[in-house]
């Protein structure tokens, strides 16, 4: 029993990971997919942060008379991974904005329908740049 409670962090990791993964797979809305993806990545962060804990250890700052301290390295590593995650989310959202501009929807199935319709017409699908056209006019 103490074992299950003692692994509390890891249960959270597994729950978050599966929840995020499920959202990515099941949701058709692209923004929700990105949310799921962030959740999925967040679970890995908690995993790393949990590894760094040393039972009975103190804050990893040099203090007179203390020898046992938590491992600071995983925390530093995960800072980098958080930066990576933020930039992935940013790029994902940027792509969603352009999808919204060209298709006028962020639902996966609707995009599919629009693309299929274009396929039938047998015309190369050229992307329109509404934003740029405005720039040219002004």
């Amino acid at each position: 029993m103490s074992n299950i409670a003692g692994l509390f962090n890891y249960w959270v990791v597994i729950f978050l990971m599966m929840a995020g993964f499920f959202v990515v797979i099941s949701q058709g809305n692209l923004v929700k997919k990105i949310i799921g993806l962030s959740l999925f990545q967040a679970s890995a962060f908690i995993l790393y942060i949990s590894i760094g804990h040393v039972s009975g250890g103190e804050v990893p700052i040099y203090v007179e008379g203390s020898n046992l301290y938590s491992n600071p390295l995983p925390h530093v590593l995960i800072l980098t991974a958080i930066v990576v995650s933020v930039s992935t989310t940013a790029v994902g959202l940027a792509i969603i904005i352009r999808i919204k501009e060209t298709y006028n929807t962020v639902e996966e199935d609707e995009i599919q329908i629009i693309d299929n319709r274009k396929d039938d017409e047998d015309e190369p699908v050229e992307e329109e740049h509404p934003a740029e056209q405005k720039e040219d006019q002004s």
Partner: protein
Amino acid sequence: MSVVDHLPILIIIIPLIAAPLCVLFDSAKVSWLLALAACIFSFIGSIKLLNTITASGPISYSLGGWQPPWGIEYRLDLLSIILLLLLTSIASLVVLFARYSVEQEISKNRIVPFYATLLLAIAGLSGICISGDVFNLFVFLEISSIASYTLISLGKDRRALNAAFKYLVMGTIGATFILIGIGFLYMQTGTLNMQDLSERLPSLYDNRTIRAGFAFLTVGICLKLALFPLHLWLPNAYAYAPSVVSAFLAATATKVAVYMLLRFLLTVFDFNFSLNTMPLDVILIALGSVAIVSSSLVAIFQVNLKRLLAYSSIAQLGYISLSIGLASKLGIASAIIHLFNHALMKGALFLALGAMIYKVGGAELKHCQGMLKRMPLTSLAIIIGGLSLIGIPGTAGFISKWYMINASLEAGLWPLALLILFGSLLAIIYVWKMVEAITLQPSTSTATAPLTRDEAPLTMLVPIWALVIANIYYGINTELTVSLAQRAANILVGGY
């Protein structure tokens, strides 16, 4: 220390610095020159490093002067330098090609960011090859991945956006799997240095955490590698990306993923654990075989030639993973040879299609009509590239298929040798489709092309033909590729 001692880091730093410089200068021409200069510098640097490594063994470079197990180590052995050489040479040729192609395919205000992102992708991929630290490898992986999502989304066709988004979702899941795997290894060993890990891991091979980490790493890398059931992001990403990007990614990105797989399976873990204790050899052979047959069959029915080549890429990655799965020295060596040769042929083919899109306006079968008269040199390049893809003697493709068949016979698995031959037969069908359209079908009146000779500009022809000639050269003179690959495989497999 002289400049040469710092080459391992300079090869990454120069493209990394050139990227923001491009944005600062904000001129398409200057960015192109900067990108070209950075790539050529990296290429010359890697040739120098190759000479050092073949003469005096692996190079270890401690970043910032911190000694290896504590600081980040950059480590270059034969396998890394083969990949680095491939990457930098293809990058130089692709950037040389890019000038006109990009002007036409990417809207004006995005050309400068395009070069900057391409440089970031190059820096990230070279970082993966050089790094000797698993977490550092993850960071470089993400640099290159995020750059490639952006590059794909720049495609003219609007479906490129959707393709880029799909790749982003699947790529991020793969990268997070790798991150979790690295976390598991660190949990048990307390180290991130590859050499250090390979010393500490053998005593822990029965540990369940290590095995879970191994599984996470393999699945994550296979997602990046587009191994059969995890390949869904690849066809659309290659088909709708700008042609320069398709050529660059097809020739390098998946190859670097194969490098990561070899590095983790054989350096961080060891040969015996990865391919004998764990049932990975059977899995790789099974998935590789399915990839070869199914993707080749799908490729036959494609009308868009870029999509056709993308499916053929998945099949070729199937060959590579099958050879790794054979779990022998010869198998690993043939995987490395095919990795190199496949990059040459796919680079040549995608670039030739890029030249075709530049002049004719599309890369579908109907655009090919009358190509031979209109663009004879480009057409010839597509034909030779296609022959190499099939594996006709005298081309690079033949050499790798030959070694693969040898490796499967050596392992006593003759059905696999037959399967490789069957895959080549399927390749004949889809290559013939391209060749037939180019050579035999006359230009119809509906086609946009008038029947005058209208060849692509020289900066496009030079890279295409450099790769085509490399295809023939490495098909006749196999000394460099085969001996290097065999030496690299010997080092990787070690005493087994």
